[in-house]
């Protein structure tokens, strides 16, 4: 097998100088947990697009109501039930922004011309002549506010409960676990509805109702993670060296819990948005003139056959926002979950 035609010069057989350090060189740059996670998230195009979409929607929720000339709660019955019309887009026939609507018999009418209205209502108006554009963004503002607040409260209670239960263990854990068992035995739908009936619908009462059972899943996840972490060598070592409980919790446990906490919170947000809209839809939502995406869909649903756009716009927006949040949550879970890491 040893066949070679070309002559190899003798000096080639002199000892080579091997730099010992090169053989130990690490070829890949070392990344910390968050850098690594970010690289993974960045590869997930859906999550990145969703992040941008949510960014835009949040900005719109904040500035949207003031972009329109019309207040979100200002009624103008003369301008009731106008279809959407946008100045620059009204002449593009395939876009639904020409201010016309199709009647049941198939005729196309333009209420703007019929009523000689000069104004442009970008998303049209509702039955009371209120501007849908500012109402939709105002509604989203409130929906997002409730969702973020509920998610935040869930996180605080859930993390504290789970961490204490898992970290101290023993009898404390036992009692706390029984509480969780009973709470999770109650369908959250039932709790939420009962609470709203008692508290009367409003931003705070809806938030409170959502958080009563909402924190349980967070507490469970955190407890499981803490139980796993607290017996790992680095925590045991720290304890052996005399670290206090507070130091162990804040220096060792919380940073390692961050991943699961973030993932869980990202799943709570769309869930809260859904429940708020759900409550509004069954008549337990915010009261007039306040609007949330749920109440807008509910109102739109009532006149859906005559004025479909009144339901369509908030329906599309809530769907987009739910899809975006779910995709980000999925992306984060894939990126942060240590179980999925290869």
């Amino acid at each position, binding site marked *: 097998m040893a066949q070679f035609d070309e002559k190899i010069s003798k000096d080639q057989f002199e000892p080579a100088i091997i730099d010992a350090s090169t053989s130990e060189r690490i070829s890949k740059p070392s990344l910390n947990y968050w850098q690594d996670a970010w690289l993974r998230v960045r590869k997930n195009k859906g999550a990145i697009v969703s992040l941008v979409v949510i960014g835009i929607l949040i900005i719109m929720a904040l500035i949207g109501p003031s972009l329109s000339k019309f207040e979100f709660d200002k009624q103008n019955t003369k301008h009731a039930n106008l279809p959407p019309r946008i100045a620059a887009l009204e002449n593009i026939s395939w876009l639904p922004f020409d201010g016309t609507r199709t009647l049941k018999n198939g005729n196309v009418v333009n209420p703007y011309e019929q009523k000689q209205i000069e104004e442009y209502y970008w998303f049209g108006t509702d039955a009371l002549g209120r501007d849908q554009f500012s109402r939709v963004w105002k509604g989203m503002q409130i929906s997002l506010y409730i969702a973020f607040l509920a998610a935040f409260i869930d996180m605080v209670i859930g993390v504290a409960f789970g961490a204490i239960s898992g970290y101290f263990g023993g009898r404390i854990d036992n009692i706390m676990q029984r509480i969780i*068992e*009973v709470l999770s*035995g*109650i*369908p959250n*739908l*039932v709790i939420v*509805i*009962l*609470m709203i*009936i*008692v508290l*009367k619908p409003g931003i705070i009462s809806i938030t409170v109702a959502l958080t009563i059972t909402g924190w349980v899943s967070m507490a469970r996840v955190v407890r499981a993670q803490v139980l796993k972490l607290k017996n790992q060598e680095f925590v045991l070592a720290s304890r052996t060296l005399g670290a206090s409980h507070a130091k162990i919790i804040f220096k060792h446990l919380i940073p390692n819990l961050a991943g699961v906490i973030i993932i869980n919170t990202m799943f709570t947000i*769309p869930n809260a948005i*859904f429940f708020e*809209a*759900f409550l509004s*839809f*069954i*008549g*337990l939502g915010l009261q007039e003139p306040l609007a949330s995406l749920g109440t807008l*869909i509910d109102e739109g*649903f009532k006149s*859906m*056959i005559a004025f*479909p756009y009144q*339901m369509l716009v908030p*329906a599309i927006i*809530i*769907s987009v926002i*739910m*899809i975006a*949040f*779910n*995709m980000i949550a*999925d992306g984060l879970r894939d990126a942060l979950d240590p179980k999925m890491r290869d």
Partner: protein
Amino acid sequence: MIKYIGQRVIYMIITLFLIASMTFFLMKLVPGTPFKNQAKMSDEQLEMMLEYYKLDEPVPVQYVAYMTNLVKGDLGTSYQFANTPVSELLGARIGASALLGFQALLVGTIVGIILGVLGALRQNTWVDYGTTFIAVIGKSIPSFVFAGLLQYYIGVKLGWFPVAFWKGPEYTVMPTIALSMFPIAIAARFMRTEMVEVLGSDYITLARAKGANYFEIAFKHALRNALIPVITVLGPLAVSLMTGSLVIEKIFSVPGLGEQFVKSVQVNDYSVIMATTLLFAFLFIVVILVVDILYGLIDPRIRLAGGKK
């Protein structure tokens, strides 16, 4: 196993008791009377009504009476429909809800499992991306939004199926589709994950090394192992169907428990609200228990280990 079931049943009874008590006291906290929506009554009439329904007695007495009746299976009478026992009222409506829920669960799990298996077997192809997309959509779009769109485009515009009411099989089509979207999404997602994990496991490689062909691997070896954990999501799915049924029944005017519940909420019909709440809670707890037991029966690892949990 029997000891385990017994323990679970005791927990179940405690939970139900707590829910019943909580429901009762919360209802007592609600301001106003259950008669607020009826034609204006004089104070005397109101008093008579309160007395008739024993609502003038001290709360603890009412509580004891309520709980005793509950144990006897008496859920009280509706304030809204005078003198109709709640159990009768709910009994007349449970059929539609049960049929709708059953159809949706069946469609949801079967379609979901098929989508999930397809996605896993054709990993990282357009089939996989397509099923994942359906799952994300189904999980994200609220059922009432989906139902509304369905009703408008399929029912009103295309006229393929009746828009509302409950008069025959064709009336169940759209509510079932609307209600099964979420179960489809959850089942598909879960199934895909499980199937991918199972397909990557050593025993699948061993099965291939034995000379098993594609179908034997997918269906004889992988599917069974991937299906077992799917049972665990059946519980949460059934619960999501209850939530969904409230709005879906309202949208399609289905004469079921959900529609009744929404109506009762709007008119403060306490006894119906309390009874429906309890019924939902009861179903929820039973479903979870049945699912756990089922899981133990199907998975040989749990079955033979004596139901340890």
